[in-house]
């Protein structure tokens, strides 16, 4: 089983597009990527309960790395950990990585069977290729 990945965003469209971009890196490979984005009524926003449910859905027992956009996405992800049982929240890493770059890096190594710490580290260095290119 692989480490799961959760995307938390204010916008369902933004999250779905980021996941689509990332899944392009996984041709023919399976990976649990769950999205918690936007409000029930379609407006922009984040929902800590939805984040906790997405984490539960993405977790196969190997843990979960959570990528977020900004502001309340971060606060909702932190709040979601409080809503989960400790044995689940203990195997969740909230990543400070930039959402798109971090997600692409994370899913590639997660699908390759990396550990949660390895997935989180790969996400964190998501800006490195862009920085190297731009100098």
């Amino acid at each position, binding site marked *: 089983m692989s480490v799961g990945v959760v995307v938390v965003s*204010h916008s369902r469209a933004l999250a779905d597009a980021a996941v689509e971009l990332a899944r392009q890196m996984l041709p023919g490979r399976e990976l649990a990527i769950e999205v918690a984005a936007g*409000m029930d*009524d379609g*407006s*922009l*926003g*984040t*929902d*800590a*309960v*939805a984040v906790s449910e997405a984490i539960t859905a993405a977790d196969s027992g190997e843990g979960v790395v959570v990528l977020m956009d900004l*502001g*309340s996405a971060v*606060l*909702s992800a*932190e*709040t979601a950990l*409080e*809503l989960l049982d400790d044995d689940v929240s203990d195997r969740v890493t909230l990543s400070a990585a930039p959402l798109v770059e971090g997600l692409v890096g994370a899913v590639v190594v997660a699908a390759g069977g990396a550990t949660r710490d390895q997935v989180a580290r790969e996400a964190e260095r998501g800006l490195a290729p862009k920085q190297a290119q731009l100098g």
Partner: protein
Amino acid sequence: MSDTPTTEQLTAWVTRFAELVREHRDELTALDSAIGDADHGSNMDRGMTAVVAAVTEAPPADPAALLKKTGATLVSKVGGASGPLYGTLFLRMAGAVEEGFAPALRAGFEGVLARGKAEPGDKTMVDALGPACDVLDAGGSLAEAAQAAADGRDATVPLVARKGRASYLGERSAGHADPGATSTAYLLQAAAETLS
């Protein structure tokens, strides 16, 4: 106020807060459009409307259950940063309400500080909530606490925001009251009207 409030009193409190948020929804959104993402009024209105619906539909059995239901609804329904912040405030209050309203509000305030990592003077709800807690801890009345929260809100006007979406604006965030401090002043006004 050191007495433990009843479930009925706390229900009246959150209901009155919902009314004040509804009444001042446009004001809160206007403040947030000046220095943020223009959703504080609509977000808080959506969240507090959901709270009132939830506690009316299935009235919680005791004060802790009422506060827990309020917090859990807010973290799910508000959408913006005020969801986790106000939600954490009420969830932490639930754990301390048996000691009385003042200790509960203090516990909630500490939850807000831990969640938002804001400090006094950052132009946030902390600037209204902190002074209100200080008044209550010193034995002051709810009316005095509400006044302290309103004064704290007014004192955010000249401040430059250091947290949240407003912090992207830097110096341009000065000159308006903080929306979160403003809604917090209404929270304390509602407490003074319903819990005294």
